Structures are given as structure tokens and as C-alpha cells.
């Protein structure tokens, strides 16, 4: 190929590779975020800074706007007012591909149209890196993600033939293989048994320790308390609590938000808050 053409091609397809995440830097900056869907304000005036290296659990009752907030940060849900910045740049200024190198998203349900194998599905997570230096890590990242989510034996199975819990782990492996500095997980443990719930939260914890900004939407408050650095409570589209699990998980706040009397006990050995509905 002609040299000038080759360089023009590279220019056209120039991809800004992300810097390795350094803990403490703001990964996602949300200011005055308002999302109106069908005339109803699903999110109102949300302010939130999510930093690299922290594991943030997003909690709240059904319909509080957790998935919408995650969708807005992921770039799927258009916002009515306010702003979202990803690694210091407005969300809209990032190209689709550049965004894919910076944040990965695990949705609640992943159906696949054709019977791809589990190994194929996990490898799809590497596609944003195609043609970059990161491509060299493909095999290693795929193997590591499958190992870490306990799906190595499922590698040659067809994804549609898996059970709900197996699918959830395969989908998580795909998201981990994407190897991004921001990880958005919408109820990653919903379909999982106790062992795999702990395994998944342990993976999220590891990623945060490596400098990744991890957001987990969670319904299990005890699990959130045990694994997260920071809890953000949403109620009717507003942030009503933001702090450490110990500060946020109080009987007064939880009883009001969930409209159900809640007991908070201290675990006799670990001292972590145990959250139980009063029965």
C-alpha cells in the first residue's frame, strides 16, 4: 500500500488508547443528571463522582432509578439535563470504540441470537482492542477471565444451552476480558448461588484493588455492606445516601427508603452490618 494512503488510513482509524487507571482519579463525573422518560422524571438532579479504585454499590428499592443511572453512564439512556464525564471528557465526545476501551457494562439479561460457544462469547469482549497493541493480550485476558469466573469447563458449550447462573458468569467473563478502567455491573449476582455470588463480588473487589472504578447495582444489602467501599442509595430518582456502609446502613434511613421496618445488627465476629427486615 502507498505510504500516504497507509498513514491516512491510520489517521482515520486513530484510536486513543486509555491510560492505566490510577486509584483516586475521578472516572465518572455526574452533575445535575436528570432523565425524563415518558413524562416521568426517573432521575432528578443526581450528583456523583465515581473514582478509580473504588467499589461502589448502588442500592435502593425497585424503580428508584438504579438501572437508568447505570444506563445513562453507559451512554445508552439519553439524559434530559445535567452532564456526564468519562475520564474527564463529556460522554458524547467519546467515540463508540474509544468508550468501549474505557468502560464495560454487564446488563441484567443477555440473550444471544445464534448458538455461539462460551469461549466465542468471552472473546467478543476483546473486540474493542482489535488492531491495537492490546490485541497481544487477547488470549491471556480471555483465559484469565474464564478462570476467574469458574467457566473453564464450559468453554466449548453453546451459550444458549447454559443455565441462568452459567450464562451470568459467562457474560461477566466477557465484560472482564474487555479489561476496562470502568466496570458497570447491573445485578451481577442475581442469578447466582451463594458460592458464585461471593466469587463474583470477590472479582469486583480485585478489580477495584487494581485501580478499576467498579459500580455494582445490588439488592442484597448485606452483600453490599460486606464488599463495597461506598454505598449510594437512590430513592425515587434522587441520591438520599452516599458514604461508607457503616454510615449509610442505618435503621432509620433503610426503613424509610424501603418503606419496611429494617433491623441493622452488628456481626459478632466481623463487625459488619447485617441488614434484616423486621419480621
Amino acid at each position, binding site marked *: 500500500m502507498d505510504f500516504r494512503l497507509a498513514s491516512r488510513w491510520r489517521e482515520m482509524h486513530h484510536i486513543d488508547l486509555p491510560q492505566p487507571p490510577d486509584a483516586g482519579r475521578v472516572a465518572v463525573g455526574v452533575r445535575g443528571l436528570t432523565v425524563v422518560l415518558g413524562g416521568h422524571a426517573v432521575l432528578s438532579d443526581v450528583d456523583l463522582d465515581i473514582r478509580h479504585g473504588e467499589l461502589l454499590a448502588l442500592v435502593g428499592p425497585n424503580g428508584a432509578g438504579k438501572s437508568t443511572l447505570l444506563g445513562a453512564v453507559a451512554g445508552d439512556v439519553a439524559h434530559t439535563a445535567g452532564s456526564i464525564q468519562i475520564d474527564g471528557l463529556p460522554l458524547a465526545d467519546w467515540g463508540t470504540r474509544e468508550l468501549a476501551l474505557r468502560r464495560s457494562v454487564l*446488563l441484567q439479561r443477555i440473550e444471544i441470537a*445464534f448458538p*455461539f460457544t462460551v469461549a466465542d462469547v468471552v472473546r467478543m469482549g476483546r473486540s474493542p482492542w482489535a488492531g491495537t497493541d492490546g490485541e497481544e493480550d487477547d488470549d491471556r485476558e480471555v483465559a484469565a477471565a474464564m478462570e476467574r469466573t469458574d467457566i473453564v469447563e464450559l468453554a466449548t458449550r453453546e*451459550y444458549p*444451552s447454559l443455565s441462568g447462573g452459567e450464562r451470568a458468569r459467562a457474560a461477566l467473563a466477557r465484560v472482564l476480558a474487555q479489561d476496562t478502567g470502568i466496570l458497570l455491573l447491573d445485578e451481577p449476582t442475581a442469578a447466582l448461588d451463594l458460592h458464585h455470588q461471593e466469587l463474583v463480588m470477590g472479582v469486583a473487589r480485585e478489580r477495584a484493588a487494581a485501580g478499576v472504578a467498579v459500580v455494582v447495582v445490588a439488592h442484597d444489602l448485606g452483600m453490599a455492606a460486606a464488599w463495597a467501599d461506598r454505598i449510594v442509595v437512590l430513592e425515587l430518582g434522587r441520591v438520599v445516601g452516599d458514604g461508607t456502609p457503616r454510615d449509610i446502613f442505618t435503621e432509620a434511613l433503610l426503613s424509610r427508603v424501603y418503606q419496611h421496618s429494617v433491623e441493622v445488627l452488628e456481626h459478632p465476629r466481623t463487625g459488619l452490618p447485617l441488614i434484616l427486615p423486621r419480621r
Partner: protein
Amino acid sequence: MTRRGRLTIVGLVVALVIACLLAAGIGQLQVPPNEVLGSILHRLGIDILPMPTAPRGDDALWLVRFPRVLLALLVGAALGCAGALMQGVFGNPLAEPGVIGVSSGAAIGAFACIVFGIAALGSWTVPVAAFLGGLLATLIVYGLARSGGRTEVVTLVLVGIAVTAFAGALIGMLTFVSSDDALRSIAFWNLGSLARATWDAVFAVTPFVVVGVAVAMYYAPQLDLLALGERPARHLGVDVERLRLVLIVVIALLAGAGVAFTGIIAFVGLVVPHLIRLVTGPSHRILIPASVLGGALVVVVGDLIARTLIENQELPLGVLTALIGAPFFFWLIRRTRTRAGGWA
């Protein structure tokens, strides 16, 4: 590319070459394959194999058989590729050109020319009108199905059905007002046949098929990601809207070009990608080139059968493909349904 994928591609290429040599030689005038090859090499200036020995055998090959076999190859490639693309774009293994209005639009374009005797572009008028009709119908469906900058598959398919119904009414009107001569032409076009193949048709279709297949190959890896759904595909860096718009135009190009000179040859775009998927798995990197080759093979062999099955008679190819394709498709549905997962 997997070993199995490579083997499939190589096997299809070999089968296609053999099928083309046989199809060129078999008919009312028989020319053995070595003489067919000899005639081709002679034109390239290489005289190592015998020339056709039958009277006017060389003329028959170059004037009648070769354009017909080549057009069959191109139309089959276009239909196979269009089918594989359409199923990928809509994430639905049951999608076919009829669903989004390509066939109906192409039919209206061609019928209008026949009925009103429009011949502005000479012998190219009907094919060009068919192609434009297909593209226009597809763009209308796509435009109506978009809302908020995005296209939901269900909306797209429903609008496609509405447009197809409207087109059906227009075709009925055209049939009602047309003369007996025009009716015969419409019937021929509707049944699908390669009997009107010419070198002009071959040269006209070639660029469409080459460009269409090249673009399809370029986008094949992104189609794999689209199988995860629109949002996950976007999260993995695919510009879903652009991908879909480009590929819909390519589908209309391929299906329109495939239909224009030969009429409606059904089920090739549906059955071929299915068979390939059963052998090589769903990855579009293999599925698309294999469907191009497989579609070509099916139409070349199908046309050979259609013109030799009954002596001195020619069966319409479209009828033959539908006769074999439809029951085969039922079997495919059953088979895939009973396997784990099936089609969600």
C-alpha cells in the same frame, strides 16, 4: 478461522468449480468437462486440452452456457450473502429478503415497467427498476421504523409486513390492468428463471455482487457482536445504527441485483446460511464467505437440474428451489427447535 471453517471454504470452492464445468457441458448439446476447460484455456491462449468436438460446440458454450452459468453463480452468491447478512442484522435466523420489503419493492419496480411498457434504458430497464424498487422499499421501511435515532427489530419487521401488504395490493392492481402479453412476462419473472441470461446481465450484476460481498466481509466481525443485542454491541464499540444502515443498503443491493435479471428465486438466502451454520457454527467471518460460495453452488446446480430434468422442457428455477427449499426449511426448524436452547 477454525480448521473446520477452512475445510468448508476449500470444499465449497472445489465443488463450485466442478459444478460450473459440468453445468456448462450438460444440456441438449453435450460437451465433456475436459473440452469445456479446453475451450476456456484456448481463449486464454493455452492449447493443451481438446476443443469441443460437437458441431458449433464452442459457440454454444460462449454464447449460451457460460453467461448462464456465470449469472447463476453471481445470483446465487448475491442471494446467499444477502440471506446471511439479513439474519445477522436482525439477529433472527428466520429473517429473509421478503421480511423488510426488498422482494416486494423489486417486484413492483419490474411489474410497473412490464405493464406500462417503460423501456427508457433498453433491455436494462426492468432489472434497474427492480433494483431501485427494492432499495426504495427498504429505505421506506427503515425510515418508518426508526424512532429516536434507533431501530427496534420488532418495529422494523412489523413495518416491513405492512409495506409488503401494500405492495401486494399494488401488484394486484398492476396485474388487473395489464395485457395478456405483460401477464406472461410477469408470470415468468415471478417464477424465477435463468433462461434470459446474457453477457450484458453478467457484466451488470458483477460490480454489485463484488462490492456487496466485500462490504459484508468487512463488517462480518461486528455482526458477531450484534448477536449479543444492540446495547451490548454498542458497549463493545460497534456503531450499531451505522452498521445497520450500511448493511441494509448492501442487502437491498445484493437482493435487488440477484432478483433483477432472474426473477424471484426463493429460499436460497434462507436455507444456505442455515446449512452453513450447522456445519461451521455461527461466526460471520466464515458464515458470510461460505454462504456466498454455497449460494452460488446451489443456484448453479439448481439451474442445471431445472433445465435438464424434463427433456426439451425447462422447469422454472424459482419453483424448483421453493419445492425443495420449503420442506427442507420445515425440517430445519424442527431440528433446531429440538436442540438445546433452540431460537430464543
